[in-house]
């Protein structure tokens, strides 16, 4: 089963979390990114994520494979939304299971950082002033 997935529709965190739990798990760390109502001091009314889907899935899978080999964890998963999202909607979820919390936290942080820097997904924000634009961070 793929560890990384794109989802065009809202997805259920409880079901994803349940897939990670087994008797060996002592620590589960997760991160969720939600659409917030502001960014860089501007009021945001909603946004859209666009992905280069085939490559995003392959690159996301590589990141989760790297997490599993670099850290002493049991499993790691990530789901990223695409399409139109409203304020308060879930944009990305990362879940990591491990015997101990150190590895769970470190791997969870690694996955979200790598996803944000390497996976070809772009955010298009709509602002309260009526304009909109793609985010292409300088770093």
């Amino acid at each position: 089963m793929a560890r990384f997935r794109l989802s065009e529709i809202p997805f259920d965190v409880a079901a994803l979390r349940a897939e990670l739990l087994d008797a060996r798990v002592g620590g589960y760390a997760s991160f969720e990114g939600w659409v917030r109502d502001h960014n860089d001091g501007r009021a945001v009314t909603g946004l859209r994520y666009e992905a280069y889907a085939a490559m995003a899935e392959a690159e996301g899978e590589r990141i989760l494979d790297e997490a599993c080999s670099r850290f002493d964890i049991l499993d790691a998963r990530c789901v990223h939304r695409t399409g139109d999202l409203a304020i308060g909607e879930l944009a990305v979820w990362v879940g990591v299971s491990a015997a101990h919390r150190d590895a769970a936290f470190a791997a969870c942080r690694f996955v979200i950082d790598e996803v944000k820097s390497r996976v070809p997904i772009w955010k298009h924000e709509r602002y309260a002033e009526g304009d909109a634009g793609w985010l292409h961070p300088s770093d």
Partner: protein
Amino acid sequence: MSAHVTVLYFASLRDFAEVESESFDTQAPDLRVLYLELRARHGFPLPVERLRVAVDGAFARWEDAPRDGSEIAFIPPVSGG
């Protein structure tokens, strides 16, 4: 030496190109020159230094030659998460 390629455009590049993809023959010796040609044609504001390039779904090098039949994507700075 001509190569038939398909180029995919995403995010702000697509807004400028006004198409999702285009297929054509190119004589560009490498992917950097190919981007510079397309930048001149479509008016892309992003300089090559801010992009990455992918061929057939995997990151590639700017000095690689365009392969015949390949799918090329210029990847603007990503903003997922």
